[in-house]
C-alpha cells in the first residue's frame, strides 16, 4: 500500500526559467539564501516562449515528476510578447494533458520577476510539495527510461 502523502518520495522537478526574470529571480533566492528543495533542477532558456511542449513531455518521459515553467510577468517580457504566447501555449497544453487524465498538479506556469527571489523559493517549495503528494509520475513516463 502506498502512503497517501508520499512523505518519503523525492520527486524530480524540472524548472524552465527565462534568462531575464525567473532565472535572475532564482539567483536572487540563492543570494538571499532562501531554501528550496534539491529536487528542483533549473534549465535556463532565453524566454519562456522558447519552451516547446516537446521539452515538457520529454522531461516526463525521462522520469520527471513535475515540470514548472517560469517567465517574466505578463507585460514585462524582455522580448515584449514571449510570455503571452507561452501563456496560450501552456494553457492549451496543460488542458490537453488534463484531458488525457494526466494529473494537473504536475505542470505549472509561474511568473517570477528578477526581484522575486522569495517568490521563486516559495513557489518551488510549494510545487515540490504538491508533486510529492501526487507520487511518482506513472501516467506519462516511458518505462524504458525508468531507473533500475
Amino acid at each position: 500500500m502506498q502512503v497517501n502523502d508520499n512523505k518519503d518520495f523525492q520527486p524530480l522537478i524540472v524548472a524552465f526559467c527565462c534568462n531575464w526574470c525567473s532565472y535572475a529571480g532564482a539567483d536572487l533566492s540563492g543570494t538571499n539564501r532562501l531554501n528550496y528543495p534539491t529536487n528542483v533542477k533549473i534549465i535556463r532558456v532565453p524566454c519562456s516562449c522558447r519552451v516547446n511542449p516537446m521539452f515538457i513531455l520529454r522531461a516526463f518521459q525521462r522520469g520527471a515528476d513535475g515540470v514548472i515553467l517560469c517567465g517574466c510577468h505578463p507585460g514585462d517580457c524582455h522580448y515584449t510578447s514571449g510570455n503571452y504566447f507561452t501563456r496560450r501555449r501552456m494553457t492549451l497544453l496543460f488542458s490537453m494533458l488534463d484531458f488525457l487524465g494526466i494529473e494537473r498538479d504536475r505542470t505549472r506556469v509561474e511568473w517570477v520577476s528578477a526581484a522575486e527571489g522569495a517568490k521563486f523559493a516559495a513557489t518551488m517549495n510549494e510545487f515540490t510539495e504538491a508533486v510529492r503528494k501526487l507520487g511518482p509520475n506513472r501516467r506519462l513516463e516511458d518505462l524504458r527510461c525508468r531507473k533500475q
Partner: protein
Amino acid sequence: MKRIGVFVCHCGTNIAATVDVKAVAEALGHEPGVVISQDYQYMCSESGQNLVKNAIKEHNLTGVVVCSCSPRMHENTFRKAAASAGLNPYLVEIANIREQCSWIHKDIASATEKAIILGKAAVAKVHLNSPLTAGESPVVKRALVIGGGIAGIQTALDIAEAGFDVDIVEKNPTIGGKMAQIDKTFPTLDCAACILTPKMVEASQNEHITIHSFSEVADVKGFVGNFTVKIKKKARFVDETKCTGCGLCTEKCPMKKVPNEFNMGLDNRTAIYIPFAQAVPKVATIDPNYCMMLQKGKCGICSSVCSVGAIDYKQEDKIIEQQYGAIIVATGFNPIKLDKYDEFAYNQCPDVVTSLELERLMNAAGPNGGTLLRPSDKTHPHKIVFVQCVGSRCDDSKGKPYCSKICCMYTAKHAMLIREKYPDTDVYVFYIDVRTPGKNFDEFYRRAVEQYNVHYIKGMVGKVTPRSDGKIDVQASDLLANEQLHIDADMVVLAAAIEPDKTARPLATMLTTQMDTNDFFTEAHPKLRPVESATAGIFLSGACQGPKDIPETVAQASAAAAKAIGLLVKNSITCNPCVAHSDELMCNGCSSCEKVCPYGAITYIDKEFRMPDRTTAIRRVASVNPAVCQGCGACTVACPSGAMDLNGFSNSQIMSEVDAICK
C-alpha cells in the same frame, strides 16, 4: 570526438562549504567526452582563468564547462578567457552551482548530488554547442527623445552638442513640461522660466534638433542601433510652417470658456490657443473639442484673421516614420488626482489647492497675474495651511507607497515665498518628516523656519472642513504638543504625490522595457547603470525613472545623453549570435514564425530547391535577419516542423539538458 574540460570553482567557501567540489570534479571527469576535470579556489580569478586557458591549449579542448556562480555573473568572463585561448567563446557553458545550489541547500550530500547533475547537464549541452560568431549591425546616427520637459530638452541639447541629430517627441503643443509651469525653483529661488526658456529656444534653434510637438510615439520596432519609430503628429489644424505665433487668432477666437490646462484649469483660454507666451514652437493649436468650426462647421474667424493662411480645418493626424539608433525616455510625471481624499475637501472647496496649482496662482503669468488670491473670492489669504505627504508614503490603494521626494523642498519654497511677499500671512506646514538631503537644501528649510517664521508642526491634518463663513477648518494633530489643533485657514495647499505620466506604461510595452509596479521605468542596475533600461539602446532621463527634482533631473538627463552618445559614436554594434535560424529544407513557408516574431526579423523568400524526386521547385521559405533577431525563441515553438531553431539554445541542446537532469 569532443574534448571537454570541466572546471569546478570553490568560490572560497561559498560553494565548497555545501558542495563537495572534489567529488563534483571527480564525477564529471567520468562523463563521456570529458578529458580533464579540475577544481580551484576562485575560478574567476586571474589564476583560475589561466587554469582554463592552459587546459584549453594543453588538452586541445573543444568545449568548456565551468561549475561556478550564475552565468549571469561570470559567463562573459569565461567566454573571454576561452576566446583568448583560441576557443570559440560559445563553446563555454556554465553550471550554476552557487546561486542555484550551494547557497540554497544545507545538506552536503544532496547539494553535491545536485551539483553533479547540473554539471552533467552542462556537459551534455556543451557536447552539442557549435562555435558561433557574433555579427555586426550598423548604428543609425540619430536619437529620439520621448518627452520635451527639462529632462528631454537637456538630453537632446547634449546629444546635439555632440553632433548627432536628435528628435524630440512632445505630446503637448509646446515643449517645456512641468518646469514651465513652476514659478520659482529651490533652493535658489530663481525664476523657472528665466532658466528654462533659453534652453527651449536653444533646442528649437539647434540645427541638430527636430521638435515634434503635439505628437506621440505610435509604434516602435527594431532594436539597439536600428529602431524604426512611427510618430503620430496629431492634427493641430494649424500649419506649423506658416504660423508666426502672432496670437491674433487667439485674441479673436469667440470660444473663450475653455479650461486652461497650463494654469491647472484655474482660468480659461480660447479654443485656438498658444499655451503660454514663451511656448516652443510658438504655434497656435485648435482644440477640436471646443472649436465651433470643427464641432458645428460655423465660425471660421481664426482662419479669416490669419494673415498667413496657416489655419487648416481639414488637417489630419499624420504618421511619420524615422530610424533611430538610440531612444531616450523622458516622459516625466504628474501630480496624482486627489479625488479619493475626501478628508481634504479638495473637490468641495476651491480654496484647497495642490502645490502645482499654487505655483500657477503665484506666477506672474498665472490667473491672478502673480498676486496670491483665493480662487473662491479673489481675496487675499491670511492663514495658509500646507499639508505634506498627501498620497505619498501611503500603504493603501489611494496613494503611492514611495516618498515623492520633491514636496518637502517646494513646500518650504512656497512657505518662504508667501512669507516674503505677504508678511501678514500665517503659514503652517504639517509634516511627518522633513526630508532635505541635498546641497543647500536643509539650510533652505531652516531659513523658512528661522528667518521666515513658518510654523512647522509635526503631525498630520486629519480633516479639512470648509465653513460657511468662507474659512476652512483644518483639524490636525500636533504630536509634539500632544494636542489636536483646529486652524481656521483661508487656504489649504496639498503636496500631492507625483506619479509617472499615464503614457509611460503603453510606451514601455512598445519599447519592451521593464517597469516597476508604480509604472516607473526600471533601470538596468539600481547603482551601476542608473540611466539605462535593461533593453539595449533605451535610456532613461528624468522623473520617468523615479521622483526627482530639477538639478537631479538635469544631471540624469545629461548622463542619459552621454550613454546615448556612447552608442551613437559607434559605427556598428556586435550582435548576439544566439539567434534563430531556419532550416530551409524543412521550412514549410507557413508564416507561423513570422506572426509571433516581436521584432519582424523573419521574412519569406521564394527559393529554388532540388526536390527529393530530382526535380527543382520554387518554395517559400523563412529567412531570419540575424541583426534584427534578439533570440527569444518564440518562432521555434510556433514552427511545427522544427525547421526553426535557436543558436545556443537549440532543441537538441535543451533536450539533452532535460535528459541529463532526468537521468
